[in-house]
């Protein structure tokens, strides 16, 4: 089917352009907005990969939550970087060269690998994969430990971030 290839190429183009803008536009808030576009494009890729659960999770978690959090943080700290100053540090040209080289090397390695051109094993994913996923998340023989560790990690992140991010009022501390 040629249609999915066309969709893939358009989406990939959008993602790459948006990603480059994320790391290069001077205004932080614009970087956040371009990030949203890149993340939405990645959600489309997940649909093409028939991982529909992850496509919606991508939108809910990245666009609905992480992007909002980033925008909040940009608003809270925006006075720090007056947006007209230089946004790239003095290594930026060097960094661009290194990244370009990294990309060339990675692509070369990928193309020389035999498995790179392989096609999907089975054309349509059975919708039961979500059930498989859910089952293995709480199966001791499956991924119970990572699942619970993830929840501990999130709890730790919550505790840490609240502790750091909370406004310490001078008067309140002494009470």
């Amino acid at each position: 089917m040629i249609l999915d290839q066309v969709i893939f190429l358009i989406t990939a183009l959008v993602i790459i352009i948006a990603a480059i803008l994320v790391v290069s536009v001077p205004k932080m808030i614009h970087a956040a907005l371009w990030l949203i576009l890149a993340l939405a494009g990645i959600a489309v890729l997940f649909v093409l990969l028939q991982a529909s659960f992850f496509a919606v999770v991508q939108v809910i978690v990245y666009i609905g939550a992480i992007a909002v959090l980033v925008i909040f943080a940009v608003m809270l700290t925006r006075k720090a970087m007056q947006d007209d100053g230089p946004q790239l540090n003095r290594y930026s040209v060097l960094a661009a060269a290194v990244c370009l080289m990294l990309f060339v090397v990675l692509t070369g390695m990928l193309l020389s690998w035999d498995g790179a051109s392989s096609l999907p094993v089975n054309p349509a994913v059975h919708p039961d994969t979500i059930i498989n996923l859910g089952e293995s998340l709480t199966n001791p023989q499956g991924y119970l430990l990572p699942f619970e560790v993830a929840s501990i990690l999130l709890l730790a992140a919550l505790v840490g971030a609240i502790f750091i991010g909370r406004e310490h009022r001078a008067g309140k501390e002494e009470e």
Partner: protein
Amino acid sequence: MIPLSWYLILSAALVCVGVFGVISRRNAIAMLLGVELILNAVNINLLAFWRYKDVSHVTGQVFTIMVITAAAAEVAVGLAIFIAVYRNKRTIAAEDVADLKG
């Protein structure tokens, strides 16, 4: 049908853009956005390998969940640190905040 290499090359490109962002942006939040791009590239790879191998093995999907969790935790704590630093020093340019250097 899309060959696997397309996904891999796209995610390689995304990683490179992300690395560039982390190295060369001055604003700490922008560096964090670069990290987000890298982690998303990882997710593309994980799900692509899950799709192009045996789909009944959900390892790739479980790893994606872990990466998303880690990304969220990283963003939450990272941004909180930047906000706290900003409150104390009125800057979030990464090179100005070198107090934690050993």
